[in-house]
């Protein structure tokens, strides 16, 4: 049973436009959410996070939005750059359980075309 779902395996956008990556979750005990970025042959790197007490967190070109009632979060990248092309993983922490485990989605491959 997938608790963190990234339903779009891939996304393609033009350079300069907005990229929107979506993530849905089912566990209402998740209290902290993270986005990781992964280039081929490298490990995932932390990008941005959001606590469940917030609905938005912004860091430069990256903004994460959280809709708790819908159990949905999204990552916005504006403007998108070719160097943003990578696999993006959504991850969530279970605040009611082992507070060190992260549950990951399957990832979305973002391609930004010049």
């Amino acid at each position, binding site marked *: 049973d997938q608790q963190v779902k990234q339903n779009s395996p891939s996304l393609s956008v033009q350079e300069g436009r907005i990229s929107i990556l979506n993530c849905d979750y089912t566990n209402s005990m998740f209290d*902290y959410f993270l986005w*990781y970025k992964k280039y081929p*042959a490298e490990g*995932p790197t*932390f990008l941005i996070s959001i606590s469940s007490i917030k609905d938005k967190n912004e860091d430069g070109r990256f903004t994460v939005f959280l809709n708790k009632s819908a159990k949905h979060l999204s990552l916005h990248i504006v403007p998108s750059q070719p160097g943003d092309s990578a696999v993006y*993983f959504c991850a969530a922490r279970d605040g009611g359980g*082992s507070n*060190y485990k992260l549950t*990951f989605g399957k990832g979305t491959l973002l391609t930004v075309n010049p």
Partner: protein
Amino acid sequence: GAGVSQSPSNKVTEKGKDVELRCDPISGHTALYWYRQRLGQGLEFLIYFQGNSAPDKSGLPSDRFSAERTGESVSTLTIQRTQQEDSAVYLCASSLGRASYEQYFGPGTRLTVT
């Protein structure tokens, strides 16, 4: 400073052989995690070490899998009698401590069982 390192980067082994994967976490990080990523899947939690506490082995898929950690440094993940379904990228991550949400990942070891 140095990030998380893993060795080997690639390992091809025959079914039934034992393999040992190594992880060197970031110096000063007390928490260490092992994950597995099968083709087209998200990251699957395997095991967690925190300081001198008993490790959380709840994610290990079978008793063929084991892991050790020497103090707060190197960790080894051992897979005995490898099977083809063990083929995956094995990722190690470390973090400052139990309460630290951000995990820093190594580049992974790609294991292929033939």
